[in-house]
């Protein structure tokens, strides 16, 4: 593990800035947050991602102090913040509606928080100018919020919430009101500002692309629980459940019964924890515990080399579609019987102990290949092209497989459309490597 990579959540010595400890929040009978514990580290850009009503906003409002947990506690720098009212917290929030004060100028909006502190006037002015510069709003300082554009308002809201240099900045759907182009530009701007100021950001969003772009870690939420919290790459490549796989991006889900495959002699040498499959990837079993990690990092690594860290670092699905005549199929893993009369799907990264259980093989559309002749790879399924969505750089093919199952295949348009050899109603083969998918049990 290289030292300059920002991964405090993997460092046992790092102390988290925010700790949720068994936090439950109920509104009457409704459970908004269900017994959640997790940490957010300093300088992190943490995204809470989920559909509306999943509890992400409640989570944020508890951090800001507008709601208090029904059970459990939230620690900021190790101190319980429950008794601290919102106006005394070193936490600032950027509201979804921006909540700019309409009767105050841009300058006064940004200065509002500073004026409430004991800061001398000259320092306030200097700080406001600094914020105006950071958000490139110098020219609009004397305008009222209704005299500037939506994108400018968004920047005023950001400048206002950053002015007091909070330890933690909360952003509630900060780009919800912007159009797609502006949103993209703003996302990068936001990342720059986060880096420049070194503030810890927590962003709430329902836009998975936004979360993946800006965040160092993404927590995918559903009905009051965090289903998976990890770096964007892992969330996308190794989702832990069908819900996460389905929520993030496009996915093909093949349901079937797992059957353990023969293990070749050389496969025995492979570590068991090479299985990236979601449910069978409990962090505790394959890894040393906290004390073990520390022992390893402080002492053992000098003798036996660095520790292979988290299982998620192992066996991510291979990215590219199989080339014809590729290397022989890997042994081990599982085969999945998914439809009568069809060959089983081979997933060499599946856990053989799942033998006999119902499992789902999740495959990203871009990890499938599409061709008119059967390629020589582990998995090849015949189907008919029903629909082609042309996206410019990419095309998405909707292919009907046996039993009426629809599969989505994404391929780069390396040739111009006129020269493309696959068209509607063609019989095609979709293919993928034995390591392309993720085996899910939930």
């Amino acid at each position, binding site marked *: 593990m290289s030292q300059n990579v920002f991964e405090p959540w993997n460092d046992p010595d790092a102390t988290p800035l925010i700790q949720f400890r068994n936090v439950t929040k109920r509104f009457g009978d409704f459970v908004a947050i269900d017994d959640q514990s997790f940490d957010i580290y300093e300088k992190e850009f943490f995204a809470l991602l989920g559909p509306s009503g999943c509890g992400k906003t409640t989570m944020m409002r508890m951090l800001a102090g*507008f709601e208090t947990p029904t059970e459990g506690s939230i620690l900021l720098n190790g101190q319980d913040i429950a008794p601290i009212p919102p*106006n*005394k917290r070193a936490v600032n929030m950027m*509201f979804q509606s921006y*909540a700019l004060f309409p*009767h105050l100028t841009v300058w006064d909006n940004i200065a509002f*928080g500073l004026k409430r502190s004991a800061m001398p006037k000259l320092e306030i002015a200097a700080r406001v100018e600094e914020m105006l510069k950071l958000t490139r709003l110098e020219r609009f300082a004397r305008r009222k919020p209704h005299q500037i554009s939506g994108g400018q308002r968004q920047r005023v809201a950001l400048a206002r919430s950053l002015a007091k240099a909070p330890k933690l900045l909360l952003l509630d759907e900060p780009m919800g009101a912007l159009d797609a182009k502006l949103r993209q530009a703003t996302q990068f701007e936001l990342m720059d500002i986060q880096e420049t100021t070194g503030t810890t950001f927590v962003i709430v969003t329902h836009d998975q692309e936004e979360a993946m772009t800006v965040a160092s870690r993404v927590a995918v939420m559903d009905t009051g629980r965090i289903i998976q919290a990890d770096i964007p790459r892992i969330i996308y490549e190794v989702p832990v459940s069908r819900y996460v796989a389905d929520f993030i991006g496009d996915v093909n889900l093949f349901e079937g019964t797992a059957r353990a495959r023969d293990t070749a002699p050389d496969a025995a040498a492979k570590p068991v924890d090479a299985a990236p499959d979601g449910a069978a990837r409990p962090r505790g079993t394959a890894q040393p515990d906290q004390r073990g990690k520390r022992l390893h990092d402080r002492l053992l690594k000098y003798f036996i080399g660095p520790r292979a860290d988290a299982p998620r670092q192992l066996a991510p699905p291979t990215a590219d579609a199989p080339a014809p005549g590729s290397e022989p199929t890997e042994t081990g893993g599982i085969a999945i019987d998914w439809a009568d009369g069809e060959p089983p799907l081979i997933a060499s990264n599946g856990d053989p102990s799942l033998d006999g259980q119902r499992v789902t093989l999740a495959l990203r559309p871009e990890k499938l290949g599409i061709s008119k002749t059967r390629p020589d790879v582990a998995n090849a399924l015949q189907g008919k092209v029903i629909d082609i969505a042309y996206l410019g750089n990419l095309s998405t093919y909707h292919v009907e497989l046996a039993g009426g199952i629809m599969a989505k295949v994404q391929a780069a348009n390396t040739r111009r459309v006129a020269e493309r050899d696959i068209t509607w109603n063609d019989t095609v083969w979709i293919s993928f490597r034995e390591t392309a998918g993720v085996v899910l049990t939930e």
Partner: protein
Amino acid sequence: MRRAALILVPYLWLLALFLVPFLIVFKISLSDIALAIPPYTPTLDLSEGWQGIRDFVSRLDFENFVFLTTDDLYWRAYLSSVQIALIATVLTLLVGYPIAYGMASAPDHWRPTLMMLVILPFWTSFLIRVYSWMGILSTEGYLNQVLLGLGVISSPLTILNTNTAVYIGIVYTYMPFMILPIYSTLERMDGSLLEAAEDLGCSRIKAFWLITVPLSKSGIIAGCFLVFIPTVGEFVIPSLLGGSDTLMIGKVLWEEFFNNRDWPVASAVAIVLLLILVIPIVLFQRNVEKQRETEG
């Protein structure tokens, strides 16, 4: 063409119901008192043609306006009316603002009911409601009976026929005009503004003064004018609830008309009252326009 017709409607309305009566009153104010029906002279006689009109105009003068300056009763009455109206407006604001605030912060499903309750008194005659205050405030009235019964006071309070009773009457009668505009500005206010203020370090009380009050300013101004303007010329409340020392121009006007049967002087009093009120009316219109500007 069609647009011109549409614009014409309100102007015709204004002409028929404001400008024409105003000109008639103005004409009477320039006449002299007479023992006749109508009780003033000259009257316009169109049968004599052009000569008659010239004759009529030549007999009009500003004598009555000059008269108003000679008797200090009139300017004292104007001043006292403005003073009572100002105090009553402030009192109405002090009572009305919390009510409007409470309504705006009530749960959504409660609001129509609360709004109904504010408007409900309009369903009964204004006169009856003022009369019923006499029943409450008189020496043997309900208020004194309750206070005596509770042992709060040992001898009945004299409230009726004092300025206090006039204030109570005005505050009660004009309350809805204060509540409704304030409520409408408070209701439109985005609740997250207060959360944002709190988030930036304001206490709740500070947030109220720095955010809620400035943002409801247009409602406060509108409400104050809606109470102040009719109160200056108020006649029923001071004559029913007020005492002999309650001096209000509305009462003076009434006495000139009905006790003295001096229509020309009464008309002059009315014209001056209108001129006094033009200032706040113009200011009120400005406020409305300004509010539209910031919203648009």
